[in-house]
């Protein structure tokens, strides 16, 4: 008797599995891109894995562990920060790097937003290419961190907790954008840097033996300000905003629709083929309003596989 009941239960399970198969398949098809890794708001540092991206307003996909907003006022956890860099406006002045370094007291030798001189092929003119952290939606660095010292926040930011980092540098090895830096020695301190207690929103005071990176200035953003590099750009080349609101703003006070800006100007994401799903978009360097950078390479430039 007992055996037959077990067999009966097994059949039920098989039938149930078959019935749910089309639904699962459906969901699989509806899924866009790669599943997002997001942090659980209740316990920071813990990642939860969404098996699909819920559809937000206006058909914009957003990954959020929280339910979709009922009111128009958005909490931080319901935002999806995004950056657009207009390469046709960047003249390589490195004001963004300097402002970032000053704001975060970035240790010497590190450039959290670094301006590269790029040339896509011998026939094309070289151009300047500012590279912040790409805040990937499929972040290679977050995957490999052994202690949850870096994780994906619900608002899209890949944050770094230097008070937990053990300094194994696996995240630096995993990052394809060379956007992560290490404090090889004790960083020089100033009273201003030491004045604030450590928080991941500002990421200082800095300590020896840990990894650092661009974090989209969550402290400034929380105060309703633009990140330091965006504010500092004299050309207004860097836009920052919320993908859910579909609005991005630059230092010139121009606020434009993110979706229109990217779709009308052939916006792209750097090394899309790697599948990291960056949250930084680039507009191609055409119709530039400044002279191209010098063609000869800099003396310190070596290596690098990207043309």
């Amino acid at each position, binding site marked *: 008797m007992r055996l037959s009941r077990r067999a009966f239960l097994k059949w039920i399970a098989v039938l149930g599995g078959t019935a749910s198969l089309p639904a699962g398949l459906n969901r699989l098809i509806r899924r866009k891109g790669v599943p997002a890794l997001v942090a659980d708001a209740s316990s920071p540092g813990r990642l939860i894995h969404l098996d699909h991206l819920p559809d937000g307003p206006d058909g914009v996909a957003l990954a959020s562990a929280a339910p979709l907003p009922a009111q128009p006022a958005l909490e931080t956890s319901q935002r999806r920060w995004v950056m657009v860099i207009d390469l046709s406006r960047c003249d390589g002045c490195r004001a963004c790097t300097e402002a970032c370094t000053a704001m975060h007291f970035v240790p010497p030798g590190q450039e959290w937003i670094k301006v590269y001189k790029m040339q896509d092929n011998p026939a094309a003119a070289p151009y300047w290419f500012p590279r912040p952290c790409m805040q990937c939606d499929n972040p290679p660095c977050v995957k490999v961190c052994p*202690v949850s010292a870096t994780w994906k926040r619900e608002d899209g930011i890949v944050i770094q907790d230097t008070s937990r980092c053990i300094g194994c540098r696996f995240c630096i090895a995993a990052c394809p954008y060379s956007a992560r830096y*290490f*404090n090889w020695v004790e960083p020089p301190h100033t009273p201003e840097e030491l004045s604030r207690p450590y928080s991941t929103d500002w990421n200082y005071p800095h300590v020896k033996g840990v990894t650092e990176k661009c974090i989209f200035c969550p402290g400034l953003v929380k105060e309703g300000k633009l990140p330091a590099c965006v504010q500092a750009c004299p050309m207004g080349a860097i836009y920052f905003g919320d993908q859910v609101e579909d609005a991005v703003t630059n230092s010139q006070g121009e606020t434009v629709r993110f979706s229109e800006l990217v779709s009308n100007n052939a916006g792209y994401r750097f090394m899309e083929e790697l599948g990291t799903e960056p949250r930084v978009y680039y507009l191609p360097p055409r119709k530039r309003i400044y002279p191209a950078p010098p063609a000869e390479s800099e003396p310190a430039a070596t*290596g690098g596989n990207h043309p």
Partner: protein
Amino acid sequence: MRSPQLREQFSDREVQLLSSLTESGPGFYGLVGFLLAVIAWGIIAYSIQLRYGLGVTGLRDYVMWGVYITNFVFFIGVSHVGALMSAILRITGAEWRRPITRMAEAITFASLLMGALMPVVDMGRPDRILNVLLHGRLPSPILWDILSITTYLTGSTLFLYVPMIPDIALLRDRFAQGPAWRRRLYTVLALGWKGTEEQRHRLETIMAVMAVLIIPIAVSVHTVVSWIFGMTLRAGWNSTIFGPYFVSGALFSGAAAVVTAMAAFRWAYHLEDYITESHFRRMGYLVIALGLIYAYFTFAEYLTPAYKMATHERGYLTAVFSGPYARLFWFTQIVGVLLPVLLLTLPRISWVRRLGDLPLFQPRPILAALATATGISFFLLISRSPVAAVENVDTIRTVALWVVFALGGWSFLGLLPIFHTWPITAAVVASLLVNIGAWMKRFVIIVPTLENPFLPIQNVPVIWAIYKPTWVEWSITAAALAGFVLIYLLFSKLFPIVSIWETREAVMEPHTVIRKEVSDAPGA
């Protein structure tokens, strides 16, 4: 040397096998003193690194892993030989393994300890090491490494210890020399072994089960070590065959390490009766087979990207084939794989002996060739600037270089008959070359890839873009190597390095033992 007291307690055979426990000449103390000095120097270097940070190494943001991680991969690789010797050879019933299994397991034990230490040395914040347990994230390959290495360490320590119990019991019962703590240690470790039929049966069962369990664990260890690299997007690491590639390289270097250890112990403790030429021959076959498998994987790993020369892979491939790492890479392939395989094959090729009869390969012409080659090399070294004014200096240098190569090849051919007559020497030279090459190959896997990231290296000092290890890294590496040898040496002073009871069984009743082995093996 051998005390008369020892002769009363033990048979001649046992006296010989226990000689490593009793004979401690000035050579031994000198070696231990030297090793301790190297380790002390390494500790000084590490304390400097702790004080000032990893900035005292040659590592920077681009090449953020270097010699320490190379050591890690190397030591973990060498540790694979334990599983090979005691599990695979046990299951396949290779009886000749008996005198050398303990040596192999001890290598596994010592190299795992040193290998596991290396990532800790490499850590920026070793004070936060407990975070790995408190906040450990299983999706990180580092956690896989920790799990699999600790499992393998536990397993191979058992594999080393359990078959040693009968020998420890023998020492407990009859070994009266040395301080009292030693006999107490033997008493505890012998676990009340009396050699009853039931105890023997249990021991055999444990070993048979362990032999099956340890193989997948050992394979997993180097697979997940390779995945530290394979799970990143980096060109040169982003490879699907890294797991088996690393496992094959690990077995190759591990088997070679056993050959070195066999020769060292045979020479130091006069174990010629137990570690015979046939052991070197058989181990040589193993090294040849593993070397060929490894060479095949290397070929597959490099040819597929090199054929396509995709944008991102070009950088490290050129660096390795013809750029700054070319000399190191080709050294690992020619001197680290091809030459050892050749040296191990040599004693089996009969015509090599006749090579020595040719007048061209007599000692005198060979020495003349060597002297000429040295002279030309010296000329090449100094000729860089002073002779630069001479026209066609590059052509002259190129021709001279080829002459040196030709003379070197000639001298090498002259050495072949010597290696043919001394097969053990050939095996030792081959095994040392394999391990030197293995270390360098791990370096060549790690560093060129890091020096060629996706984005160009711009706006930084040149020394940040090129990795040059500092004295701190070399000192710690030397200390790790010394620590490995020291653990190994002290082990051989505490326990017989050749199993007494297992070799006795093989000598006394080879046929019954073989049958027993087979019936104990799984699936039989």
